[in-house]
């Protein structure tokens, strides 16, 4: 990933600058114009997002209404939490494929504790989220202590959890949750849904974590160069376990919100979210090789995917074409991001 050769095909002007004293001023000018293009590329998610909003709005003016904005925010909440959950392992150059199935399974655990055991949601919901967190912790242990490859290990856990959900639900849909349980997914304050607040809090928390804390710095360093991070005194394994555990926690919260919003848990709850949850942060600039990405970019990726999803639903595109067009739009976003990365690293 990092070219180590001393022979870059195109040495950047900033590298060459210190050696030649005379052309200092032109160099500065070049740098400024390059920064301009770089800025454009860095924010390409937002430009792409704005363009799509305009296009969908022109196709169907309903897209510009307040109630549609509220709809987008609600739709973005579950995907957003999952995208944050995916980002943490990605940050340390690992991946967790079990998050979506973890979301469905842990929500079922929480709901069953409430509905069948008759306990208060105040107990059932934390139990479900705790189960999700424990699964994340377990994944972290497998990847660090047993040195399992996260791609395959979490894939196996994903299948186990999908199967477990089917086993616990016996193929039925759980739908008799009490009002307290579904409150978060159904309540509105002055027409504004409450649910997106959870995503907002999680997003701000993630931003704070990554930018301001020792743990955030350690995540970036571990993903950027794990050996160097270890030699620098960072407990790399501990950092990875924390990343997986937090990822599990976020999946659990997402699972609860999805159940509360849908007022139901199907026997394949959460399936279909995984690939979008992985695509969103990558579109938003999180590197699959670790060490790169931020909360703002993840938000951009999540909103972009949600706008595509909602936009296609309301623009009367025949339903047989929706998935195909959605896929193409995502493809374009990923391609533009690849161009951006090539450009920036040049």
């Amino acid at each position, binding site marked *: 990933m*990092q070219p*180590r*050769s*001393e*022979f*870059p*095909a*195109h*040495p*950047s*002007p*900033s*590298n*060459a*600058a*210190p*050696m*030649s004293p005379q*052309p200092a001023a*032109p*160099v500065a*000018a*070049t740098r400024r114009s390059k920064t301009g293009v770089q800025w454009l590329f860095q924010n390409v998610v937002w430009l792409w997002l704005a363009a799509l909003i305009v296009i969908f709005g022109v196709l169907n003016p309903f897209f510009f209404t307040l109630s549609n904005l509220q709809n987008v925010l609600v739709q973005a909440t579950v995907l957003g939490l999952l995208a944050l959950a995916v980002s943490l392992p990605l940050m340390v150059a690992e991946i967790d494929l079990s998050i979506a199935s973890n979301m469905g399974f842990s929500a079922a655990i929480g709901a069953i504790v409430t509905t069948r055991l008759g306990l208060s949601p105040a107990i059932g919901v934390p139990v479900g989220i705790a189960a999700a967190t424990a699964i994340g912790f377990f994944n972290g242990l497998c990847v660090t202590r047993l040195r399992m490859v996260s791609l395959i290990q979490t894939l196996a856990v994903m299948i186990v959890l999908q199967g477990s959900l089917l086993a616990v639900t016996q193929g039925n849909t759980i739908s008799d949750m009490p009002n307290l349980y579904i409150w978060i997914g159904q309540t509105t304050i002055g027409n504004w849904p409450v649910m997106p607040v959870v995503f907002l809090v999680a997003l701000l928390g993630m931003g704070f974590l990554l930018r*301001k*804390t*020792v*743990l955030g*710095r*350690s995540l*970036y*360093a571990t993903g*950027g*160069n794990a*050996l*160097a*991070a*270890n*030699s*620098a*005194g*960072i*407990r790399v394994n501990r950092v990875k376990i924390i990343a997986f555990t937090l990822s599990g926690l976020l999946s659990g919260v997402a699972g609860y919100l999805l159940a509360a919003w849908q007022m139901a848990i199907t026997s394949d709850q959460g399936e279909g979210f995984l690939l979008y949850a992985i695509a969103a942060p990558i579109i938003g600039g999180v590197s699959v090789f670790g*060490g*790169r990405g931020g909360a703002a970019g993840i938000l951009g990726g999540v909103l972009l995917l949600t706008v595509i999803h909602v936009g296609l639903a309301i623009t009367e595109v025949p339903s047989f074409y929706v998935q195909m067009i959605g896929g193409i739009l995502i493809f374009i976003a990923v391609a533009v991001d690849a161009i951006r990365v090539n450009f920036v690293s040049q």
Partner: protein
Amino acid sequence: MADSSNTEYILRTHNLVKRYKNVVALDHVSINIRRSTIHGLLGENGAGKSTLVSLISGLTAPTEGTITFAGEQVQGFDVKQMEALGVFLVTQEPMIVESMSVADNLMLGHWPVKRGLMRRVDQRALMANAVAALEGTGLDPRMPARTLSAVAKRKLNILRALHSGGKLLILDEPTAALTLADREHLFGFMRSLKAQGVSFVFISHYNEEILGICDAVSVLRNGRLAGEMDDISSINSDSLSELVIGRDVPLFYRDRATRHDHATSEGWQVEGLVAPNIAVDNFTIAPGEIVGFAGLPGSGAKEFGLSLFGLNRAKQGHITHDNQRYGFAQHPEDAFARGIAYLSDDRHRDGLVGLQSIAQNITLSSLSKVSRGGVIDASAEKQVVKRYFDHLRVKAVTPNVLLGTLSGGNQQKVCLGRVLATEPKLLILDEPTRGIDVGVKEEVHRIIDALTREGLSVIVITSDLDEMVRMVDRVCIFVGGQIEQEFTGADIDKDAILQAAFGTALAH
């Protein structure tokens, strides 16, 4: 130089100019490489060596100027074309597929194929070719490439280029990360190929190496040709350094007489260490002392340093410092907490995070010092960063630049800044000046020397004997996992260290 016969020079460049937008990376450079010679290419990082090499090897096209190969002007610039002529670039990083055999690597991508649509590899022909090509080189074609030593991998890279028709090989710092003995081995190999008619361009930061192996040398500075020596014997190390940086570099010599004047602490004592590949009964280092470690790979010199730092887990033994006794660190975090820091010999592997900024790298090992309750105190961090950024005179626009974009010497300074920011009392430096240019090297020596005046104890593990002799107060020779011999003061002598540590004298 007047045009002489076509056969005398294998490759010549004529007034090569390379501009990147407004920056002139190479300014009218003409060099002449004679057949069957080793031609040194010297210059600081950023002097234009890389650009010149990319032009010669066809990676990029010049803005102006021409190249002639064996008397014929090269038309068009393209790697494939230059390789067809016989010009090959052999980079620092051995390009080897570790999971394949030596024979497979030798013909990577050009394996002999059996007739038919399936393009099955003709294993028998492959082996026969490989056996013939590797005869007398000491490489076994059947060996998996992953089992090769560092020097054997470099030889394999060179052989691969030759096998593909290489006549002029450009070796980019081929001695990086090689031990002294391996270096000599590689040089012997190059000399024997030279005798068979192969020509080399040899890039190195070490004057000693250039003087030891090259027939001629070209020195670049600020994109211009600063000097060209057709006969290497007409120049010495000091005048070579002067050509490289354009002024007289005063070499640093440590003043050994005036150091023992602070007795604030008793220093460090190591007792009964047992760890993989190392067993040391007793070792002490005084405050302000610089001790050099020398030895072959596996002799324990490096392992001892790693054990102190927690990267080579000790099974037994303890350290005493300031009347406190601890076991050995089991993780670098413990070591830093006790005031022991280590600077890696391979910064790309485990020294730096290229994706993070200079500032973030500087505080990476001292985050606990600039944070409260796990939250980083931005102003405290800024202060630490500014201190080391300025003190080490890192050449960058701001500390927010990504570390990966800096030159090698500046990256090394940042790595040094990172370990110094932990405010260590015992600093272990593993090949601290490897692959950095002369000016920065002397700067690093002076910085280390100044720190010892404030009581810092330093262990230097180095195979650069020149550095050893000028820098340290005492030398420990490691053989077979133990300290075999020590030299102090006036007894510190290159030949004596060489003899004791490597058992052989360097052939010059």
